[in-house]
């Protein structure tokens, strides 16, 4: 029984990390219908950026992580304006290919700059702290913080979308970009802000990824896959659904790993497929789309 509770608990907390991976992906798809295949690599890029700031400039990790938020925003803004904007249009293939190419460029750039060695963000021992819950159960501090961060990011994004003028503009552009322009919205700038925000969320995800596990330049595509699965399980367009999707995926992987360590990923993919078959639009699809 304790084992079962433990599996669910650890799985739920792991789901927080997947929700963080997925939130930025979901944001970008929602606003500009762009499937960003470089999303996972951008998370890894943010993690290496934090690593570089601590190693090269000698900044403490929390400072480096905070600094990464505006830095990743700027990278996202520039990326959208200079690279992605020119290929966005009625045809979805050019942006897809562009982000695919971007993924390869980022991976190889990181390999060149940081080698293929496995890295880790060091929090000076914080990453191994855990809270005993009694009855032989304990939860790690970092997984708990990850989950809380995921909730915070989702609450913040939801507030942004439904309670601010900027969020209203995001939804208007998502609804009808041509009419939005006639209402005075500069789509290009708005898209760049959206990409900046998404990459800031990537920085949050990167911080927790780097604190909890090793990373190297090639792990981006697998993070992208988890993010996709979380978004699809949850239902496109709903951020809380994305958290639920992350949790389902996290629990499935933890349960699979408990049965046999080799089954972690397989179990996640199988549950993903099962949900796709049973509910093709995800667990919490948006009412109209």
């Amino acid at each position, binding site marked *: 029984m304790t084992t079962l509770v433990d599996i669910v608990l650890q799985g739920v907390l792991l789901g927080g990390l997947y929700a963080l991976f997925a939130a930025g992906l979901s944001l970008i798809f929602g606003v500009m219908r762009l499937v960003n295949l470089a999303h996972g690599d951008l998370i890894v890029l943010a993690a290496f950026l934090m690593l570089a700031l601590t190693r090269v400039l000698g900044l403490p990790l929390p400072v480096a992580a905070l600094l990464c938020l505006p830095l990743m925003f700027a990278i996202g803004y520039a990326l959208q304006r200079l690279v992605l904007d020119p290929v966005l249009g009625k045809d979805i293939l050019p942006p897809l290919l562009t982000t695919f190419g971007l993924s390869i460029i980022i991976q190889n750039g990181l390999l060149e700059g940081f080698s293929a060695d496995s890295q880790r963000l060091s929090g000076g021992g914080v990453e191994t702290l855990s809270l005993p819950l009694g009855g032989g159960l304990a939860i790690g501090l970092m997984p708990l913080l990850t989950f809380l961060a995921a909730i915070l990011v989702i609450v913040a994004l939801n507030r942004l979308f439904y309670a601010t*003028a900027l969020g*209203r503009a995001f*939804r208007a552009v998502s609804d*009808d970009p041509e009419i939005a*322009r*006639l*209402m005075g919205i500069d*789509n290009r700038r708005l898209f760049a802000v959206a990409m900046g925000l998404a990459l800031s969320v990537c920085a949050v995800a990167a911080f927790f990824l780097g604190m909890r596990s090793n990373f190297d330049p090639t792990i981006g595509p697998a993070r992208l896959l988890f993010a996709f699965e979380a978004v699809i399980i949850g239902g496109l367009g709903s951020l809380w659904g994305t958290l639920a999707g992350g949790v389902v995926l996290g629990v499935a992987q933890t349960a699979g790993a408990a049965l046999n360590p080799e089954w972690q990923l397989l179990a996640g993919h199988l549950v993903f497929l099962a949900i796709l078959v049973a509910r093709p639009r995800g667990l919490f699809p948006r009412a109209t789309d």
Partner: protein
Amino acid sequence: MANLLEVEELRKSYGSLVVTDSVSLSVGEGEALGVIGPNGAGKTTLFSLITGATRPDAGRVRLDGRDITGVGAAGRCIAGVCRSHQIPQPFEKLTVFENLLVGACFGRAMSEAEATDHCAGVLELTGLIAKANRPGGSLTLLDRKRLELARALATQPRLLLLDEIAGGLTEGECESLIGTIAAIRAGGTTIVWIEHIVHALLAVVGRLVVLNFGRKIAEGNAHAVMDLPEVREIYLGSPV
């Protein structure tokens, strides 16, 4: 009377089909101009060229003496040009109120508080206040048409372009629409109105422009234009 809008030798073609053929016209500040012509005459394309949704092949558009030909659609909205669409295109997933707030906050750079007050006033004027919190996509055709007008007004346009806004309305609805548009004009807004329902148009505008096959074929005092033989021919058929 200074001209608010000047359109000079505007030309647009799609392949070999010339939809706007060297059209020039000007609209004075505070004036209401009617645009008539048969289907396919290029009336709606003219609006797309004025709002910047479509780029002309040649010609100039000036607002208040300033050349805005190279300004994009968003910039022209901010400069004071806004239109309603013949086929209503609300932001379907935004509420009616949010539909208006978008234009007020971005088209006119209002603060949230100013925008809220202004948009509530516009909803009152256009009779949509009771439906303020319904999604735009849930409205009936009549209310969608009202929303088109309301959303354009939310941007506080100096130049309001109305595209067949009276089409499909009942007689009573049409009367109240005429009252609303007359009130908007009385408030100082310059209006260009494309309309097939001629009596509604004549109740508001003093001057008419007639388009046919992309060309301007007549222009002048509304009643005089309606009496021209070539206009009567378009609307009533050729004399026997």
